[in-house]
Protein backbone atom coordinates (compact mmCIF):
# COMPACT_ATOMS: atom_id res chain seq x y z
CA UNK A 1 0.00 0.00 0.00
CA UNK A 2 2.93 2.25 0.84
CA UNK A 3 4.23 1.70 -2.68
CA UNK A 4 1.05 3.03 -4.28
CA UNK A 5 0.89 5.97 -1.92
CA UNK A 6 4.45 6.98 -2.77
CA UNK A 7 3.76 6.58 -6.44
CA UNK A 8 0.66 8.74 -6.31
CA UNK A 9 2.39 11.49 -4.38
CA UNK A 10 5.27 11.42 -6.82
CA UNK A 11 3.29 11.37 -10.02
CA UNK A 12 0.06 13.24 -9.44
CA UNK A 13 0.58 16.97 -9.33
CA UNK A 14 -2.49 17.99 -7.38
CA UNK A 15 -1.67 15.81 -4.37
CA UNK A 16 1.39 17.90 -3.55
CA UNK A 17 -0.80 20.66 -2.24
CA UNK A 18 -2.08 18.32 0.47
CA UNK A 19 0.21 17.21 3.32
CA UNK A 20 1.54 13.75 2.57
CA UNK A 21 0.10 12.26 5.77
CA UNK A 22 -3.42 12.99 4.58
CA UNK A 23 -2.69 11.46 1.19
CA UNK A 24 -1.43 8.33 2.92
CA UNK A 25 -4.49 8.26 5.12
CA UNK A 26 -6.92 8.60 2.22
CA UNK A 27 -5.15 5.96 0.14
CA UNK A 28 -5.09 3.55 3.03
CA UNK A 29 -8.76 4.04 3.81
CA UNK A 30 -9.58 3.39 0.16
CA UNK A 31 -7.29 0.37 0.15
CA UNK A 32 -8.86 -0.97 3.31
CA UNK A 33 -12.34 -0.62 1.85
CA UNK A 34 -11.20 -2.44 -1.28
CA UNK A 35 -9.89 -5.22 0.92
CA UNK A 36 -13.25 -5.43 2.67
CA UNK A 37 -14.91 -5.53 -0.75
CA UNK A 38 -12.66 -8.44 -1.62
CA UNK A 39 -12.97 -10.38 1.63
CA UNK A 40 -16.70 -10.26 2.26
CA UNK A 41 -17.97 -11.30 -1.21
CA UNK A 42 -15.12 -13.82 -1.49
CA UNK A 43 -16.03 -15.45 1.82
CA UNK A 44 -19.68 -15.36 0.80
CA UNK A 45 -18.95 -16.91 -2.57
CA UNK A 46 -16.92 -19.64 -0.87
CA UNK A 47 -20.03 -20.70 1.06
CA UNK A 48 -21.76 -21.20 -2.28
CA UNK A 49 -18.78 -22.99 -3.84
CA UNK A 50 -18.54 -25.26 -0.82
CA UNK A 51 -22.16 -26.30 -1.21
CA UNK A 52 -21.75 -26.98 -4.91
CA UNK A 53 -18.56 -28.95 -4.32
CA UNK A 54 -20.31 -30.91 -1.58
CA UNK A 55 -23.13 -31.57 -4.02
CA UNK A 56 -20.80 -32.89 -6.69
CA UNK A 57 -18.97 -35.11 -4.22
CA UNK A 58 -22.19 -36.60 -2.97
CA UNK A 59 -23.70 -37.07 -6.43
CA UNK A 60 -26.34 -34.42 -6.00
CA UNK A 61 -26.71 -30.95 -7.42
CA UNK A 62 -26.47 -28.37 -4.67
CA UNK A 63 -27.95 -24.88 -4.88
CA UNK A 64 -28.61 -24.00 -8.54
CA UNK A 65 -31.72 -21.78 -8.50
CA UNK A 66 -30.58 -18.21 -7.89
CA UNK A 67 -28.93 -16.94 -11.04
CA UNK A 68 -27.09 -19.07 -13.60
CA UNK A 69 -25.92 -22.25 -11.88
CA UNK A 70 -26.99 -20.65 -8.63
CA UNK A 71 -24.00 -18.32 -8.35
CA UNK A 72 -26.07 -15.64 -6.66
CA UNK A 73 -27.10 -17.99 -3.90
CA UNK A 74 -24.73 -16.33 -1.45
CA UNK A 75 -26.16 -12.90 -2.22
CA UNK A 76 -29.62 -14.23 -1.50
CA UNK A 77 -28.33 -15.83 1.69
CA UNK A 78 -26.75 -12.56 2.76
CA UNK A 79 -29.93 -10.60 2.14
CA UNK A 80 -31.91 -13.22 4.00
CA UNK A 81 -29.58 -13.04 6.99
CA UNK A 82 -29.91 -9.25 7.14
CA UNK A 83 -33.70 -9.46 6.97
CA UNK A 84 -33.82 -12.00 9.79
CA UNK A 85 -34.94 -11.05 13.24
CA UNK A 86 -32.14 -9.92 15.53
CA UNK A 87 -32.51 -12.32 18.44
CA UNK A 88 -30.70 -12.14 21.75
CA UNK A 89 -31.88 -14.96 24.01
CA UNK A 90 -33.15 -13.89 27.42
CA UNK A 91 -30.69 -16.15 29.22
CA UNK A 92 -27.75 -14.65 27.35
CA UNK A 93 -25.30 -12.13 28.70
CA UNK A 94 -26.33 -9.28 26.42
CA UNK A 95 -23.10 -7.28 26.44
CA UNK A 96 -20.75 -10.16 25.73
CA UNK A 97 -23.23 -11.67 23.28
CA UNK A 98 -23.07 -8.49 21.22
CA UNK A 99 -19.31 -8.07 21.58
CA UNK A 100 -18.27 -11.56 20.44
CA UNK A 101 -18.97 -11.20 16.68
CA UNK A 102 -16.84 -8.03 16.64
CA UNK A 103 -13.84 -9.80 18.08
CA UNK A 104 -14.16 -12.85 15.85
CA UNK A 105 -14.58 -10.80 12.69
CA UNK A 106 -11.89 -8.23 13.55
CA UNK A 107 -9.44 -11.02 14.42
CA UNK A 108 -9.96 -12.71 11.11
CA UNK A 109 -10.14 -9.54 8.98
CA UNK A 110 -6.96 -8.02 10.45
CA UNK A 111 -4.88 -10.96 9.23
CA UNK A 112 -5.49 -9.73 5.69
CA UNK A 113 -3.33 -6.67 6.46
CA UNK A 114 -0.18 -8.75 6.15
CA UNK A 115 -1.32 -11.14 3.41
CA UNK A 116 0.42 -10.61 0.10
CA UNK A 117 -1.57 -10.68 -3.13
CA UNK A 118 1.11 -9.88 -5.68
CA UNK A 119 4.57 -8.35 -5.93
CA UNK A 120 3.32 -4.93 -4.88
CA UNK A 121 -0.15 -5.64 -3.57
CA UNK A 122 0.03 -5.97 0.18
CA UNK A 123 -1.56 -3.75 2.78
CA UNK A 124 1.41 -3.78 5.14
CA UNK A 125 4.56 -5.78 4.50
CA UNK A 126 5.55 -6.04 8.14
CA UNK A 127 8.94 -7.26 9.32
CA UNK A 128 7.13 -9.66 11.59
CA UNK A 129 4.57 -10.67 8.92
CA UNK A 130 3.95 -14.30 9.76
CA UNK A 131 4.12 -13.73 13.50
CA UNK A 132 1.64 -10.86 13.14
CA UNK A 133 -0.81 -13.18 11.39
CA UNK A 134 -0.59 -15.74 14.19
CA UNK A 135 -0.83 -13.02 16.83
CA UNK A 136 -3.92 -11.36 15.41
CA UNK A 137 -5.73 -14.58 14.67
CA UNK A 138 -5.26 -15.63 18.31
CA UNK A 139 -7.90 -13.01 19.12
CA UNK A 140 -10.45 -15.24 17.45
CA UNK A 141 -10.11 -17.82 20.23
CA UNK A 142 -11.18 -15.26 22.80
CA UNK A 143 -14.15 -14.25 20.65
CA UNK A 144 -15.21 -17.87 20.32
CA UNK A 145 -15.11 -18.55 24.07
CA UNK A 146 -16.92 -15.27 24.63
CA UNK A 147 -19.75 -16.23 22.27
CA UNK A 148 -20.04 -19.64 23.89
CA UNK A 149 -20.14 -18.22 27.39
CA UNK A 150 -22.47 -15.34 26.56
CA UNK A 151 -25.03 -17.62 24.91
CA UNK A 152 -25.58 -19.44 28.19
CA UNK A 153 -26.50 -22.59 26.38
CA UNK A 154 -25.05 -26.02 27.11
CA UNK A 155 -24.20 -26.69 23.49
CA UNK A 156 -22.69 -23.27 22.88
CA UNK A 157 -20.50 -23.24 25.95
CA UNK A 158 -19.25 -26.76 25.42
CA UNK A 159 -18.61 -25.98 21.76
CA UNK A 160 -16.76 -22.78 22.63
CA UNK A 161 -14.56 -24.49 25.21
CA UNK A 162 -13.75 -27.41 22.94
CA UNK A 163 -13.04 -25.05 20.10
CA UNK A 164 -10.64 -23.01 22.20
CA UNK A 165 -8.88 -26.13 23.48
CA UNK A 166 -8.52 -27.40 19.94
CA UNK A 167 -7.25 -24.15 18.48
CA UNK A 168 -4.58 -23.69 21.12
CA UNK A 169 -3.53 -27.34 20.87
CA UNK A 170 -2.93 -27.10 17.16
CA UNK A 171 -1.32 -23.70 17.31
CA UNK A 172 1.85 -25.25 18.77
CA UNK A 173 2.61 -27.53 15.80
CA UNK A 174 1.52 -24.77 13.44
CA UNK A 175 3.96 -22.16 14.66
CA UNK A 176 6.64 -24.83 15.03
CA UNK A 177 6.32 -26.00 11.45
CA UNK A 178 6.70 -22.45 10.16
CA UNK A 179 10.14 -22.32 11.80
CA UNK A 180 11.43 -24.70 9.11
CA UNK A 181 10.78 -22.01 6.50
CA UNK A 182 12.12 -19.19 8.66
CA UNK A 183 15.39 -21.08 9.08
CA UNK A 184 15.73 -21.13 5.29
CA UNK A 185 14.80 -17.50 4.68
CA UNK A 186 16.04 -15.74 7.78
CA UNK A 187 13.07 -13.39 7.69
CA UNK A 188 9.56 -13.24 9.12
CA UNK A 189 8.31 -10.94 6.37
CA UNK A 190 5.75 -12.39 3.96
CA UNK A 191 7.13 -10.76 0.81
CA UNK A 192 10.68 -11.69 1.77
CA UNK A 193 9.64 -15.32 2.14
CA UNK A 194 8.09 -15.34 -1.31
CA UNK A 195 11.09 -13.63 -2.87
CA UNK A 196 13.33 -16.37 -1.48
CA UNK A 197 11.46 -18.89 -3.64
CA UNK A 198 11.20 -19.22 -7.40
CA UNK A 199 8.35 -19.69 -9.84
CA UNK A 200 9.21 -23.29 -10.67
CA UNK A 201 8.03 -25.98 -8.23
CA UNK A 202 11.56 -27.18 -7.52
CA UNK A 203 12.32 -23.74 -6.13
CA UNK A 204 9.35 -23.78 -3.78
CA UNK A 205 10.08 -24.45 -0.15
CA UNK A 206 7.70 -27.39 -0.36
CA UNK A 207 10.32 -29.26 -2.39
CA UNK A 208 13.34 -27.61 -0.85
CA UNK A 209 14.22 -30.52 1.40
CA UNK A 210 12.38 -33.48 2.92
CA UNK A 211 11.82 -31.66 6.20
CA UNK A 212 10.23 -28.66 4.56
CA UNK A 213 7.99 -31.10 2.69
CA UNK A 214 6.79 -32.62 5.96
CA UNK A 215 6.54 -29.16 7.51
CA UNK A 216 4.02 -28.17 4.87
CA UNK A 217 1.72 -31.00 5.82
CA UNK A 218 2.11 -30.35 9.53
CA UNK A 219 1.31 -26.71 8.89
CA UNK A 220 -1.67 -27.38 6.68
CA UNK A 221 -3.23 -30.03 8.90
CA UNK A 222 -2.85 -27.82 11.98
CA UNK A 223 -4.24 -24.87 10.08
CA UNK A 224 -7.30 -26.85 9.02
CA UNK A 225 -7.74 -27.87 12.65
CA UNK A 226 -7.58 -24.24 13.71
CA UNK A 227 -10.40 -23.45 11.34
CA UNK A 228 -12.56 -26.04 13.12
CA UNK A 229 -13.25 -27.84 9.89
CA UNK A 230 -13.83 -31.52 9.33
CA UNK A 231 -12.03 -33.76 10.24
CA UNK A 232 -11.42 -31.45 13.19
CA UNK A 233 -14.92 -30.08 13.64
CA UNK A 234 -15.68 -31.47 17.10
CA UNK A 235 -16.42 -27.93 18.37
CA UNK A 236 -19.41 -27.67 16.07
CA UNK A 237 -20.16 -31.31 15.47
CA UNK A 238 -23.63 -30.97 14.03
CA UNK A 239 -24.95 -34.25 15.32
CA UNK A 240 -23.76 -33.53 18.85
CA UNK A 241 -23.64 -29.81 19.46
CA UNK A 242 -26.07 -28.45 16.83
CA UNK A 243 -23.72 -25.69 15.68
CA UNK A 244 -21.32 -25.28 18.58
CA UNK A 245 -20.47 -21.87 19.91
CA UNK A 246 -22.72 -20.00 17.50
CA UNK A 247 -25.86 -22.06 18.12
CA UNK A 248 -27.74 -19.16 19.70
CA UNK A 249 -26.71 -16.67 17.05
CA UNK A 250 -29.05 -15.84 14.22
CA UNK A 251 -29.43 -13.25 11.53
CA UNK A 252 -26.37 -11.29 10.54
CA UNK A 253 -24.58 -11.92 13.82
CA UNK A 254 -24.47 -15.55 12.76
CA UNK A 255 -23.51 -14.42 9.28
CA UNK A 256 -20.44 -12.69 10.69
CA UNK A 257 -19.22 -15.88 12.35
CA UNK A 258 -19.77 -17.64 9.08
CA UNK A 259 -17.91 -15.00 7.08
CA UNK A 260 -15.00 -15.11 9.51
CA UNK A 261 -14.84 -18.88 9.21
CA UNK A 262 -14.65 -18.85 5.44
CA UNK A 263 -12.27 -15.89 5.43
CA UNK A 264 -10.02 -17.98 7.68
CA UNK A 265 -10.00 -20.80 5.17
CA UNK A 266 -8.70 -18.33 2.61
CA UNK A 267 -6.14 -16.98 5.08
CA UNK A 268 -4.63 -20.36 5.94
CA UNK A 269 -4.46 -21.28 2.26
CA UNK A 270 -2.82 -17.96 1.38
CA UNK A 271 -0.28 -18.33 4.19
CA UNK A 272 0.52 -21.87 3.05
CA UNK A 273 1.00 -20.63 -0.51
CA UNK A 274 3.25 -17.84 0.75
CA UNK A 275 5.41 -20.07 2.89
CA UNK A 276 5.63 -23.24 0.88
CA UNK A 277 4.20 -22.91 -2.63
CA UNK A 278 6.13 -20.05 -4.13
CA UNK A 279 3.53 -17.32 -3.60
CA UNK A 280 3.10 -14.95 -6.52
CA UNK A 281 6.32 -15.93 -8.29
CA UNK A 282 5.95 -16.05 -12.06
CA UNK A 283 8.61 -16.51 -14.75
CA UNK A 284 8.15 -12.85 -15.64
CA UNK A 285 10.66 -10.33 -14.46
CA UNK A 286 9.46 -7.22 -12.66
CA UNK A 287 11.37 -4.13 -13.78
CA UNK A 288 11.94 -1.71 -10.95
CA UNK A 289 11.88 2.02 -10.90
CA UNK A 290 9.41 2.70 -13.68
CA UNK A 291 5.66 2.59 -13.53
CA UNK A 292 4.67 1.48 -16.96
CA UNK A 293 2.41 -1.10 -18.50
CA UNK A 294 4.89 -3.94 -18.06
CA UNK A 295 5.20 -3.89 -14.25
CA UNK A 296 1.42 -3.75 -13.93
CA UNK A 297 1.06 -6.74 -16.22
CA UNK A 298 3.66 -8.68 -14.23
CA UNK A 299 1.86 -7.71 -11.06
CA UNK A 300 -1.40 -8.93 -12.50
CA UNK A 301 0.19 -12.23 -13.49
CA UNK A 302 1.51 -12.54 -9.94
CA UNK A 303 -1.91 -11.80 -8.50
CA UNK A 304 -3.57 -14.41 -10.70
CA UNK A 305 -0.90 -17.00 -9.87
CA UNK A 306 -1.29 -16.34 -6.18
CA UNK A 307 -5.08 -16.53 -6.25
CA UNK A 308 -5.12 -19.73 -8.31
CA UNK A 309 -2.74 -21.48 -5.91
CA UNK A 310 -4.70 -20.24 -2.92
CA UNK A 311 -8.06 -21.35 -4.24
CA UNK A 312 -6.65 -24.76 -5.10
CA UNK A 313 -5.77 -25.13 -1.42
CA UNK A 314 -9.19 -23.82 -0.42
CA UNK A 315 -10.65 -26.52 -2.62
CA UNK A 316 -8.49 -29.09 -0.86
CA UNK A 317 -10.01 -27.95 2.45
CA UNK A 318 -13.48 -28.53 1.03
CA UNK A 319 -12.44 -31.84 -0.42
CA UNK A 320 -11.19 -32.98 3.00
CA UNK A 321 -14.41 -31.87 4.61
CA UNK A 322 -16.61 -33.94 2.36
CA UNK A 323 -14.33 -36.98 2.34
CA UNK A 324 -13.17 -37.61 5.87
CA UNK A 325 -15.11 -38.60 8.96
CA UNK A 326 -14.89 -36.60 12.17
CA UNK A 327 -12.28 -37.28 14.85
CA UNK A 328 -13.33 -37.87 18.45
CA UNK A 329 -12.21 -35.33 21.05
CA UNK A 330 -9.59 -37.63 22.54
CA UNK A 331 -8.32 -38.65 19.10
CA UNK A 332 -8.09 -35.01 18.21
CA UNK A 333 -5.95 -34.19 21.22
CA UNK A 334 -3.81 -37.28 20.63
CA UNK A 335 -3.15 -36.30 17.03
CA UNK A 336 -2.29 -32.76 18.09
CA UNK A 337 0.00 -33.38 21.03
CA UNK A 338 1.40 -36.85 20.43
CA UNK A 339 1.91 -36.77 16.69
CA UNK A 340 1.99 -33.22 15.34
CA UNK A 341 4.11 -31.63 18.08
CA UNK A 342 6.86 -34.30 18.06
CA UNK A 343 6.89 -34.38 14.25
CA UNK A 344 7.18 -30.59 14.14
CA UNK A 345 10.09 -30.66 16.60
CA UNK A 346 11.81 -33.39 14.62
CA UNK A 347 11.34 -31.32 11.49
CA UNK A 348 12.84 -28.26 13.07
CA UNK A 349 15.97 -30.13 14.13
CA UNK A 350 16.12 -31.86 10.75
CA UNK A 351 15.97 -28.58 8.84
CA UNK A 352 18.67 -27.10 11.03
CA UNK A 353 20.92 -30.13 10.38
CA UNK A 354 20.21 -29.92 6.66
CA UNK A 355 21.30 -26.31 6.68
CA UNK A 356 24.47 -27.08 8.59
CA UNK A 357 25.41 -29.75 6.07
CA UNK A 358 24.28 -28.24 2.78
CA UNK A 359 23.69 -24.58 3.59
CA UNK A 360 20.48 -23.33 2.04
CA UNK A 361 20.86 -25.49 -1.05
CA UNK A 362 17.70 -27.28 -2.06
CA UNK A 363 17.40 -30.84 -3.32
CA UNK A 364 17.10 -29.53 -6.85
CA UNK A 365 20.30 -27.53 -6.47
CA UNK A 366 22.14 -30.54 -5.08
CA UNK A 367 20.95 -32.84 -7.86
CA UNK A 368 21.68 -30.27 -10.52
CA UNK A 369 25.23 -29.94 -9.18
Amino acid at each position, binding site marked *: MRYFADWIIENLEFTRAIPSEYVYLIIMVVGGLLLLLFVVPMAGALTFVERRVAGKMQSRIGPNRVGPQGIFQFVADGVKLILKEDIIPTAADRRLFKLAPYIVFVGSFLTFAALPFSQKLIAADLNIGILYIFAVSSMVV*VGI*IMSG*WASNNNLSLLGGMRSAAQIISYEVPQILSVLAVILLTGTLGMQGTIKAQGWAPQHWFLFHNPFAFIAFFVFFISAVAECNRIPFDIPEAESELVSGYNTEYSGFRFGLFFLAEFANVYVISAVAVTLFLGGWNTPFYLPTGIWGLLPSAVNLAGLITFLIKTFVLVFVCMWLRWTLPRLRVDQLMTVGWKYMVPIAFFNLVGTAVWMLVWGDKSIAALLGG
Partner: protein
Amino acid sequence: MQSFNIVVYVFAAIIVASAALVAFSRNLVYSAFALLFTFFGVAGIYVMLSADFLAAVQLLIYVGGILVLIIFAVMLTHRISDVEISNQSLRPAQGALILIGIMAVLLGVIFKTQWSLEGQLEYQATTALIGDLLLKKYLLPFEIVSVLLLAALMGAAVIVRKEVRGEQSGGKS
Protein backbone atom coordinates in the same frame (compact mmCIF):
# COMPACT_ATOMS: atom_id res chain seq x y z
CA MET B 1 4.92 14.78 16.14
CA GLN B 2 1.44 15.59 17.25
CA SER B 3 -0.33 12.57 15.80
CA PHE B 4 2.23 10.24 17.41
CA ASN B 5 1.33 11.59 20.84
CA ILE B 6 -2.39 11.33 20.19
CA VAL B 7 -2.11 7.67 19.21
CA VAL B 8 0.02 6.88 22.26
CA TYR B 9 -2.55 8.52 24.51
CA VAL B 10 -5.37 6.61 22.83
CA PHE B 11 -3.61 3.33 23.55
CA ALA B 12 -2.83 4.44 27.08
CA ALA B 13 -6.49 5.34 27.60
CA ILE B 14 -7.54 1.89 26.35
CA ILE B 15 -5.11 0.25 28.76
CA VAL B 16 -6.18 2.29 31.78
CA ALA B 17 -9.91 2.00 31.10
CA SER B 18 -9.87 -1.73 30.49
CA ALA B 19 -7.54 -2.33 33.44
CA ALA B 20 -9.96 -0.40 35.64
CA LEU B 21 -12.74 -2.66 34.37
CA VAL B 22 -10.63 -5.69 35.21
CA ALA B 23 -10.08 -4.43 38.73
CA PHE B 24 -13.49 -3.01 39.57
CA SER B 25 -15.98 -5.11 37.65
CA ARG B 26 -18.24 -7.09 39.96
CA ASN B 27 -18.43 -9.81 37.38
CA LEU B 28 -15.39 -12.06 37.22
CA VAL B 29 -16.05 -13.04 33.63
CA TYR B 30 -16.18 -9.40 32.54
CA SER B 31 -12.87 -8.84 34.30
CA ALA B 32 -11.30 -11.69 32.37
CA PHE B 33 -12.58 -10.52 29.01
CA ALA B 34 -11.61 -6.90 29.70
CA LEU B 35 -8.01 -8.11 29.85
CA LEU B 36 -8.21 -8.62 26.09
CA PHE B 37 -8.34 -4.87 25.58
CA THR B 38 -5.56 -4.26 28.09
CA PHE B 39 -3.26 -6.66 26.26
CA PHE B 40 -4.25 -5.17 22.95
CA GLY B 41 -3.42 -1.67 24.17
CA VAL B 42 -0.03 -2.79 25.46
CA ALA B 43 0.72 -4.35 22.08
CA GLY B 44 -0.19 -1.01 20.48
CA ILE B 45 2.26 0.81 22.76
CA TYR B 46 4.96 -1.69 21.84
CA VAL B 47 4.41 -0.94 18.17
CA MET B 48 4.73 2.78 18.86
CA LEU B 49 8.02 2.09 20.64
CA SER B 50 9.42 0.19 17.66
CA ALA B 51 9.24 -3.15 19.43
CA ASP B 52 7.46 -4.99 16.65
CA PHE B 53 8.50 -8.48 17.70
CA LEU B 54 7.41 -7.85 21.28
CA ALA B 55 4.06 -6.50 20.11
CA ALA B 56 3.32 -9.66 18.16
CA VAL B 57 4.51 -11.85 21.01
CA GLN B 58 2.37 -9.86 23.42
CA LEU B 59 -0.73 -10.74 21.42
CA LEU B 60 0.33 -14.30 20.68
CA ILE B 61 1.18 -15.28 24.26
CA TYR B 62 -0.99 -13.03 26.36
CA VAL B 63 -4.18 -13.00 24.29
CA GLY B 64 -3.86 -16.43 22.72
CA GLY B 65 -2.40 -18.15 25.77
CA ILE B 66 -2.57 -16.44 29.15
CA LEU B 67 -6.01 -14.92 28.59
CA VAL B 68 -7.45 -18.25 27.49
CA LEU B 69 -5.80 -19.81 30.54
CA ILE B 70 -7.39 -17.20 32.81
CA ILE B 71 -10.79 -17.69 31.23
CA PHE B 72 -10.53 -21.45 31.65
CA ALA B 73 -9.49 -20.88 35.26
CA VAL B 74 -12.58 -18.72 35.79
CA MET B 75 -14.74 -21.45 34.33
CA LEU B 76 -13.19 -23.90 36.78
CA THR B 77 -14.27 -21.95 39.84
CA HIS B 78 -17.11 -23.27 41.93
CA ARG B 79 -20.50 -21.65 41.64
CA ILE B 80 -19.45 -19.80 38.52
CA SER B 81 -23.10 -19.32 37.64
CA ASP B 82 -23.37 -16.76 40.45
CA VAL B 83 -21.13 -14.39 38.61
CA GLU B 84 -21.84 -11.67 41.13
CA ILE B 85 -20.02 -13.37 43.99
CA SER B 86 -16.65 -12.72 42.55
CA ASN B 87 -14.13 -9.94 42.62
CA GLN B 88 -14.78 -8.67 46.12
CA SER B 89 -12.31 -6.52 48.02
CA LEU B 90 -10.64 -8.63 50.67
CA ARG B 91 -8.11 -7.55 53.28
CA PRO B 92 -7.74 -3.88 52.33
CA ALA B 93 -4.92 -3.30 54.83
CA GLN B 94 -2.58 -5.94 53.45
CA GLY B 95 -3.58 -4.89 49.96
CA ALA B 96 -2.61 -1.29 50.68
CA LEU B 97 0.79 -2.43 51.92
CA ILE B 98 1.50 -4.33 48.73
CA LEU B 99 0.19 -1.41 46.73
CA ILE B 100 2.60 1.00 48.41
CA GLY B 101 5.48 -1.39 47.82
CA ILE B 102 4.73 -1.75 44.12
CA MET B 103 4.15 1.98 43.79
CA ALA B 104 7.57 2.70 45.31
CA VAL B 105 9.29 0.39 42.83
CA LEU B 106 7.36 1.80 39.89
CA LEU B 107 8.01 5.40 40.89
CA GLY B 108 11.69 4.62 41.25
CA VAL B 109 11.75 3.21 37.74
CA ILE B 110 9.74 6.12 36.36
CA PHE B 111 12.14 8.71 37.76
CA LYS B 112 15.26 6.82 36.78
CA THR B 113 14.25 6.22 33.19
CA GLN B 114 15.24 8.63 30.49
CA TRP B 115 12.01 9.50 28.78
CA SER B 116 12.98 11.76 25.91
CA LEU B 117 13.05 8.98 23.36
CA GLU B 118 10.80 10.84 21.00
CA GLY B 119 12.55 11.67 17.79
CA GLN B 120 15.37 9.20 18.45
CA LEU B 121 13.18 6.20 17.78
CA GLU B 122 14.38 4.18 14.87
CA TYR B 123 11.84 1.80 13.41
CA GLN B 124 13.61 -1.34 12.40
CA ALA B 125 13.25 -5.09 12.46
CA THR B 126 14.04 -6.07 16.02
CA THR B 127 13.73 -9.85 15.68
CA ALA B 128 17.29 -10.42 14.52
CA LEU B 129 18.65 -8.06 17.19
CA ILE B 130 16.76 -9.94 19.90
CA GLY B 131 18.13 -13.22 18.57
CA ASP B 132 21.65 -11.85 18.57
CA LEU B 133 21.39 -10.67 22.16
CA LEU B 134 19.73 -13.87 23.35
CA LEU B 135 22.26 -16.22 21.84
CA LYS B 136 25.39 -14.23 22.58
CA LYS B 137 25.19 -11.73 25.40
CA TYR B 138 22.35 -13.33 27.34
CA LEU B 139 23.06 -16.95 26.57
CA LEU B 140 22.96 -18.17 30.15
CA PRO B 141 19.59 -16.57 30.98
CA PHE B 142 18.31 -18.00 27.71
CA GLU B 143 19.24 -21.52 28.69
CA ILE B 144 17.92 -20.98 32.20
CA VAL B 145 14.57 -20.09 30.64
CA SER B 146 14.36 -23.61 29.29
CA VAL B 147 14.91 -24.99 32.80
CA LEU B 148 12.19 -22.67 34.07
CA LEU B 149 9.82 -23.91 31.38
CA LEU B 150 10.74 -27.46 32.33
CA ALA B 151 9.74 -26.71 35.92
CA ALA B 152 6.45 -25.29 34.67
CA LEU B 153 5.81 -28.46 32.67
CA MET B 154 6.40 -30.57 35.76
CA GLY B 155 4.01 -28.35 37.68
CA ALA B 156 1.37 -28.94 35.02
CA ALA B 157 1.88 -32.69 35.33
CA VAL B 158 1.38 -32.47 39.09
CA ILE B 159 -1.89 -30.58 38.64
CA VAL B 160 -3.13 -33.21 36.22
CA ARG B 161 -2.41 -36.08 38.56
CA LYS B 162 -4.12 -34.41 41.48
CA GLU B 163 -7.13 -33.03 39.66
CA VAL B 164 -7.91 -35.96 37.44
CA ARG B 165 -8.00 -38.23 40.47
CA GLY B 166 -10.27 -35.81 42.31
CA GLU B 167 -12.51 -35.50 39.32
CA GLN B 168 -13.27 -39.14 38.84
CA SER B 169 -16.12 -38.77 41.31
CA GLY B 170 -18.00 -36.49 38.95
CA GLY B 171 -17.79 -33.54 36.60
CA LYS B 172 -18.36 -33.01 32.95
CA SER B 173 -15.96 -32.85 30.12
